[in-house]
């Protein structure tokens, strides 16, 4: 039995022989015996205080002495009232729990900005309000009545005595009219989930009031839109937007959503906005370990599909969008905004080993030594630049070569060194590369080929051509490839890539690559 449960049972019930022995064993420790006595005194005072507030009647006894006693108690209470009335308290938020480096328990903040990337802290204000904050977060504690959440997730529980509390966000402000809510500031919108009482969301030209059990997403441009209620916004079962922004998907192309197995249902609200109004229909199909686990009905472009997928025992869930009919097979759907909100499942987004847009060493005018892909090859004299690297298109970050040189380029060689220090590589489940390549690519990790794209099987040399031309539109798509996890090493790793043209003298080439470990 827990220590405090044992103490409570001592005060409210009869302890069994074994429980008495257990209690005596605990109390052998002098400090615990002190704490037990304090617990009794504290409980006694707690009940007295609760009774004094909730009981309006005082029993007056017949004895004069008792009356005198009561007068003394009353005098003490009046004195107490004066003390409390004239006591001024320092307004601040105190950190009462923290697992964030450099934010220690007991620290006090007011008119301060808090920023951290990982971990959680709990703040308690002088008013008794609690704010739980989860990194990554950017939060300004302006005053006890107003805070400014620029990024991140908070959970707020106000004390009964707090009359006014407002949270400002980049997308609107939230005025609490009750007691508890969770608030998340995402990139292009904020979402609120009300746990208790009422909350008022204020936008420049719109106001919405929510009550307990309701939730909403809000932004100045799109006003209000309904989202799935999440009673545990702050906890592990965090609602997540898995994909926001703009992305082009070809029919049949897959989006990988790697989820942990703690949840039971993946609830998805898909909001798809297509760049062109077209008459077509599509389905959403989910696969786990190559097996189909979910197939939606047919949706049209104007539908706002909502799907629920059981995730029991699902490890790697892949959602594939398939055009059912009405759209040519080589068309591209431009999805401008797709939010997939999970409930009860927290997506594991993996560890980024090489981020998209990273800096790469490269060479293109001459063929390097044959060991150019090895880990210990010296590429210090190579040029360097950030991805997307290439030529022939406007949106290239690092343009390679001059106009004349480009006409003769057949291959471009890339190298990127990266460190693996705090990853448990033996327990990795998988590694995935997202490759952007126009036209073909041969990819090595630490000197060993790990995959090739748009290239023939067998031996490859500098005269090899890519199998097909990557057309406009297709050259913008990142392709997914699985990488053997045993090719990764602790410490320094080198990823080497050689890019191939379909034909010599092509008008464009481009390259970027991201690697994630799960």
């Amino acid at each position, binding site marked *: 039995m827990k220590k405090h449960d044992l103490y409570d049972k001592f005060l409210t019930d009869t302890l069994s022989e074994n429980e008495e022995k257990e209690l005596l064993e605990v109390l052998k420790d002098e400090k615990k015996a002190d704490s037990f006595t304090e617990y009794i005194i504290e409980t006694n005072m*707690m009940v007295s205080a609760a009774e004094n507030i*909730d009981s309006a009647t005082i029993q007056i006894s017949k004895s004069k002495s008792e009356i005198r006693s009561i007068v*003394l108690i009353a005098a003490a209470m009046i004195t107490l009232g004066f003390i409390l009335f004239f006591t001024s308290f320092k307004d601040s938020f105190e950190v009462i729990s923290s697992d964030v480096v450099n934010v220690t328990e007991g620290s006090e903040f007011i008119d301060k900005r808090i920023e951290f990337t990982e971990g959680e802290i709990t703040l308690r204000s002088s008013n008794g309000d609690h704010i739980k904050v989860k990194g990554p977060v950017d939060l300004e504690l302006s005053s006890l009545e107003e805070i400014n959440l620029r990024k991140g997730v908070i959970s707020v529980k106000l004390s009964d005595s707090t009359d006014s509390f407002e949270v400002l966000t980049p997308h609107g402000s939230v005025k609490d009219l009750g007691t508890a809510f969770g608030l998340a500031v995402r990139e292009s919108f904020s979402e609120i989930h009300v746990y208790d009482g009422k909350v008022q969301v204020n936008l420049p030209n719109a106001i919405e009031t929510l009550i307990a059990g309701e939730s909403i997403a809000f932004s100045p441009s799109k006003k209000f839109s309904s989202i799935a209620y999440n009673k545990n916004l702050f906890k592990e079962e965090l609602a997540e937007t898995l994909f926001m922004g703009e992305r082009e998907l070809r029919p049949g192309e897959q989006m990988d959503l790697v989820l942990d197995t703690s949840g039971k249902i993946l609830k998805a609200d898909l909001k798809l906005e297509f760049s062109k109004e077209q008459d077509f229909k599509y389905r959403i199909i989910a696969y786990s370990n190559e097996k189909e686990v979910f197939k939606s009905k047919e949706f049209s472009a104007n539908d706002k599909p909502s799907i629920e997928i059981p995730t029991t025992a699902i490890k790697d869930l892949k959602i594939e969008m398939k055009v059912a009919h009405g759209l040519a097979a080589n068309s591209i759907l431009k999805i401008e905004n797709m939010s997939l909100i999970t409930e009860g499942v927290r997506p594991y987004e993996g560890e980024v080993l090489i981020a998209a847009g990273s800096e790469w060493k490269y060479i293109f005018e001459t063929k390097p030594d044959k060991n150019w892909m090895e880990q210990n090859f010296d590429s210090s004299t190579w040029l360097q630049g950030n991805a997307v690297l290439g030529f022939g298109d406007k949106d290239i970050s690092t343009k390679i070569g001059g106009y004349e040189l480009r006409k003769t380029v057949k291959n471009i060689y890339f190298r990127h060194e990266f460190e693996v220090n705090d990853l448990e590589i033996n327990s990795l489940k998988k590694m995935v590369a997202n490759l952007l390549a126009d036209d073909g690519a041969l990819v090595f990790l630490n000197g060993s080929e790990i995959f090739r794209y748009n290239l023939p099987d067998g031996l490859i040399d500098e005269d090899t051509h890519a199998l097909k031309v990557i057309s406009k539109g297709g050259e913008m798509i990142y392709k997914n490839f699985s990488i053997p996890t045993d090719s990764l090493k602790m410490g320094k790793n080198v990823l080497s890539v050689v890019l191939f043209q379909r034909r010599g003298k092509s008008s464009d080439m481009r390259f970027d690559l991201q690697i994630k470990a799960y």
Partner: protein
Amino acid sequence: MSLSRNSEFLQIAFDSRPVLTAYAYSILKDWGLAQDIFQDAVISMNEKHSEIQADSPLKWLKSVIRNKAIDHIRKNERNKNRNEQLSILLEEKFDQFLKNDSIQEYKEKENALQNCMAKLKPESRNVIIDFYKTKLSCEKIGNLYKKSTNAIRLILSRSRSDLRYCVKKQLENQP
């Protein structure tokens, strides 16, 4: 004994009330009875002040409370089989907590607690009373408030922790 001396005794009694009633509570396991016994003991003190040695009113009061509490248990056949080892330990501990410093400390804590309790939700206050005073089980309280047993346990532990924090802050901020 002058009247002012008697008043001085009464003042000591009321200053030590949080600890002395807790002492009675530890014997009787009944919060309401503990308050009554304390009140009876103070009345006795007032009536018999001339017999009490000037330097030991607290010792006298504690001993009267103990006798009255045990007498009550005997008459009402409640908790007759008190664990002697536990009783001795609590006697020693309460003797320590009845020293001047502790009395002053708990007097201040009691004052602060009264204010903090007012900030607690009425439902939480009621749960505290139901559990510790009325001695209802968490399950029964849960049925009353249409909450789970665990939710009631949580209310109890959170209320205690909130009150502790509030008291600490109030004492720190006292001028």
